[in-house]
């Protein structure tokens, strides 16, 4: 079977995945560079190296993410909404509702039996409820963004952020830091504020069946657990791959469909 690739150039990170026989044989993630083309080149190079194959071995490659149109090595481009849907179904074959929180976008999708996006809703207002919100807050708190999620469990008296605006919420966080409130209580408040914004969007598509979350924020346990409480449903986990890679995985699966129709994503 042919080797295929998917490349997802997001606003914060760029990801590439190499697949063979429906399995990931190499992947790579980097922080996005100023130019999407450079991000894509570096991500693909890393994934090729991890897979031990060369660019010439790739039979088909689909690009996705906000920088998709600037990638010069792809055969075609597909929106990240479609790719995340495909990737999510592959990671959790029973997934029917997908929540994807990217760097500057938040989307909720409902999938049909074939893993195609049947309905979707995306944030239309601003950066609140996106990965950028968490990134800004982690920076203000002087912690790594990966640490932010763990703070919720350690919080004793979480703060409430009054504003949904990222900039004003940042000002609130600085005020709490200066007042001596613990980092754990502030971090928990940040995670809750994020989950509240996302819950509005999730409820907009009336989630059904198994729910799965993709994108970097899916790794933030604080947001994930608060979101579960807010929507009153469990969000399923999968160990099959990093949820942040779902867009690139979906792009690779669509590449597979293109060349031999084997990217079957039927609901199990």
């Amino acid at each position, binding site marked *: 079977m042919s080797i295929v690739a998917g490349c997802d150039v997001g606003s914060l990170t760029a990801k590439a995945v190499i697949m063979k026989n429906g399995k990931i044989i190499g992947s790579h993630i980097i922080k996005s560079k100023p130019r999407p083309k450079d991000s894509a080149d570096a991500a693909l190079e890393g994934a090729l190296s991890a897979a031990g194959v060369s660019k010439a071995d790739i039979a088909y490659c689909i690009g996705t993410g*906000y920088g998709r149109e600037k990638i010069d090595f792809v055969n075609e481009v*597909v*929106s*990240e*909404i*479609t790719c995340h849907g495909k990737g999510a179904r592959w990671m959790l074959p029973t997934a029917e509702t997908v929540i994807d929180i990217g760097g500057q*976008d938040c989307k909720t999708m409902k999938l*049909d*039996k*074939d893993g*195609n*996006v*049947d*309905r*979707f809703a*995306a944030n*239309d*207002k601003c950066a609140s409820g996106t990965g950028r919100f968490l990134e800004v807050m982690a920076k203000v708190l002087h912690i790594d963004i990966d640490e932010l999620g763990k703070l919720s469990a350690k919080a004793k008296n979480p703060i409430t952020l009054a504003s949904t605006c990222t900039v004003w919420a940042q000002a609130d966080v600085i005020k709490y830091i200066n007042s001596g409130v613990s980092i754990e209580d502030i971090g928990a408040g940040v995670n809750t504020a994020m989950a509240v914004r996302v819950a509005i969007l999730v409820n907009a598509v009336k989630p059904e069946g198994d729910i799965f979350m993709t994108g970097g924020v899916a790794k933030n346990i604080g947001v994930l657990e608060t979101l579960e409480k807010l929507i009153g449903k469990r969000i399923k986990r999968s160990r099959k791959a990093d949820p942040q890679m779902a867009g690139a995985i979906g792009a690779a699966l669509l590449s597979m469909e293109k060349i031999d129709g084997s990217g079957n994503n039927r609901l199990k």
Partner: protein
Amino acid sequence: MTVFHDAATRVECDSIARWKKDGKPVVGYTCSYTPAEIFYAVDILPVRLRGIETDGMEVGDSYFGPFICSFPKCILQLAGKGRFSFLDGAIITPGCDGMRRLDECWRKAGEDFEGIVPDYFYYFDVPHKSENHGMAWYIEEINQLIKSVEDHFNVNITNEKLQAAIREFNKGRRLLNEIERLRCEKDVVVSGTDVFAAAVAGTVMPRDEYTAELKKWVSALKKRKTSLSEGKHRVMLVGSISDEIDLFELIENTQKALIVGENLCFGIRYEGNEIAEDGDPIEALAGHYLGSSVCPRMYGKYKERLAMLKERIGQSRAEGVIMQNIRFCDLHGAENALFERDLEAMGIPCLRVEREYGPHIDIGRMKLRINAFLERIEGRKKANKGDGDET
């Protein structure tokens, strides 16, 4: 087509400049409820006011504030920058509350920016119901407008002149309807972008010049053989006011979609029906402009609008509907949600998206949603084909 694109993409297009050069007056109006025939009847060029070509919002935001639709703000921005200096008059209509506020914001801005309020500045009220007293009120408003125009411009608007203007406008309406029929064919030979440019041009060009150009174009279209719809998804575009050719291009430049119909404040919704050419011309104008309205500003007409949209979707063979609303546009924001609910229940895919108007549109975000929507239509088509194969 060039003349239409020029008229549709420039605030002061060549046609307006030529009209002014002849020393004839131009009156701007803001809403599709203004009977433009009244002006054209006495050699005043009626020009629909638009917000294209704005490159900032410092004037618009100063008088309107941030929490309001960007369309009237763009008009005020252009006014504040002197871009409407060619106007001899302006008619403000309460198409919505944002447009109603344009009246007071423009007047107030006129205190700070000398000469931006035209000498003739008129508030033309429009009822929200077309039955009985609503229609009587609207006819009274038309009569008052006529009297006001006669007094200011020293003209005499007779029934004969009104009927002649109606006849001229109807020629364009008939031609636009011919184009609409072409868009319903299996193989569509004209892009949505071009049709919309032609429709928008009709709101700013002198009507006899417009009719002549449109006639030539329709004749050329009928000879075209190359299908533009082949391999593309047929979509409709509906929602908030739009005169933006860029928005049409944004959708059609995906190379995956062809716009086969629209229900917007500009375009065929505005020009769709002919006006009665006999009988009392004022009653005929009122019957058309208020009576056949399909705009959500009118109360109690949702079911009619849904039925009309469904019919248009069927006629144009649209596979999906893109519903856009300008941020803070309550009328279309609310109606789009209802349309989405009802059309999706009928199995018609819908995309609902909120945006800013014109030059302030966020292209990247819009493109993502439009592409994802077209992929959704594609996926559904493939799935249906697959299910068909299995049976």
